[in-house]
């Protein structure tokens, strides 16, 4: 029988950030749809309320992002270690993890090749996705959003980056990528040894990890 260890994987600050971010992104998706398609999507009814909520949620996500970045970059000092895939991970790890998710997982013949530790929480596929989402898409969607929220005061910069329509188009496509990411992210979180195995650590901080890969100092035998 597989030995499982309990590992303290997600610190409180990160959990608060994650759920705040999740709420913010879902709010942004719903209100954003209403802003772009007012004749089809009227979840909030009042267009002005939708704009205000969208702006508020955008600010929450932007501040939240800065806190996340500051925490990992300057407090924990593990930003690069956790989120930037190493060359080996890009060369073979991504393929191996992809094969597991889309082939071996269905056959049930192999275990998940990745075992998270507090020092290495994300598998190569996750790292690659988060690299694109957190280091490219999030800053871009925040910058385009801030410019769109302040067109008159920042008009010179709006013009400099290519105009309002370009900004609106970029913001829309980035938002769609986030929306797609939410679907995939939430679904992949159900692929643990139980459907909620990956949700629990984001709520309690502790995760049950299969095998003996967990080497963190907080880990203990279950």
């Amino acid at each position, binding site marked *: 029988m597989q030995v499982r260890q309990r590992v303290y994987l997600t610190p409180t600050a990160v959990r608060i950030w994650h759920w705040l971010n999740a709420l913010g992104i879902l709010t942004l998706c719903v209100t954003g749809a209403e802003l772009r398609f007012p004749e089809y999507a009227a979840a909030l009814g009042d*267009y002005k309320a939708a704009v205000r909520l969208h702006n508020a949620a955008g600010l929450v996500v932007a501040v939240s992002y800065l806190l996340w970045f500051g925490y990992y970059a300057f407090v924990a000092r593990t930003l690069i270690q956790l989120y930037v895939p190493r060359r080996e991970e890009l060369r073979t790890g991504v393929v191996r993890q992809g094969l597991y998710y889309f082939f071996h997982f269905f056959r049930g013949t192999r275990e998940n090749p990745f075992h998270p530790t507090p020092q290495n929480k994300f598998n190569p596929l996750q790292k690659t996705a988060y690299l694109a989402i957190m280091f490219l898409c999030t800053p871009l969607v925040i910058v385009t959003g801030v410019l769109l929220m302040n067109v008159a005061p920042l008009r010179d910069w709006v013009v400099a980056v290519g105009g309002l*329509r370009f900004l609106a188009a970029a913001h829309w496509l980035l938002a769609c990528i986030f*929306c797609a990411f939410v679907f995939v992210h939430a679904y992949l979180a159900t692929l643990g040894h139980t459907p909620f195995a990956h949700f629990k650590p984001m709520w309690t901080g502790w995760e049950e990890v299969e095998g003996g890969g967990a080497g963190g100092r907080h880990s203990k035998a279950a």
Partner: protein
Amino acid sequence: MSGAKRWGVGMLAVALGWGGVAGAMDTGECQGCHADPAIVKEGGGHLYIDGARYERTAHADVGCPSCHEGVSDAHPGDGLRPTRAGCGDCHDDTEAEYRAGRHADWAGCTDCHDPHEVKPTEVVSGPELNRVCTGCHDLGAVTASHGAWLLQPELHLEAVPCITCHTGAPGYVIAFYLERVEERPGRGPRVALATHAELAAVAGTERVERLVDGDADGIISLAELRAFNRGARGRGLRLWGMVLPDRVSHRYATLDDRWDCTFCHARGPEAAQVSTLSVPQADGRQRRFEVERGAVLDALYGTPDFYLVGATRNDTLSWIGLLIVAAGAAMPLGHGTLRFLTRNNRREG
């Protein structure tokens, strides 16, 4: 001849004519003195009429005596104050419409319109329209009062002239203007409404409207807008749009439906489909060109600097975005289905 001398000659002519047969002056005679800047020193700024601007008004067609009929050949030596016609003598419908609103309690016709310079709305830019309002209404105070309920008030007041919300109209058009973009190294570019001289410098030997209306047919097509926008930044130009009423009314009011953002920020088959492009002419007027209906506002490169959220979205981009979302949703559906079908493979022995 200097202005002072001309004024003196005018006075002399009047003096010599004193006691002669009194008759009405014609417009040329009026302009002889009143279009001379020297009259400012002699009698005050209110006596000066900019002859060039006056000549471009519809009022020039009827001439000075039509409104100032009491002015005789003895003027100004007769000491009589010239008579002035009321605006309503000719514009009775407009006056009646204006008097019906509360604005009439605070301002008369000439508080907004100088009859010696007045131009039809079609040849005036949106920023010029707003300058009439800010003559009395302090822009800072207006921005602050609108900011209490309106998001991005500066942007709205830039893109929506006051009359768009404060007068009723059967319909609205998107009016585009050409702006000059001055690049400033190390800082953002500075933009301002382009003058005819600035456009002429870019157009060279061509007429300025050819900058956009490539085939000179008087109608701006989608292809012409795209062509303009592709090279606009390189030439220091860009398009800026404003929402204007298609028929100007003088019934000023705070209209209830303007509190609702979807009055403008909604999209229906007829919303925001009509647009025009105004190009400044050598005489200071704007010439309006009809722009291809509908599609222009949907086009990504048609109007790079005008975006009316919820109304002028690009359909192609909407579909691309929705496909991205659909792909994200398809992954859990597809993987989840296979996961369900192969669930027996993962049961622990």
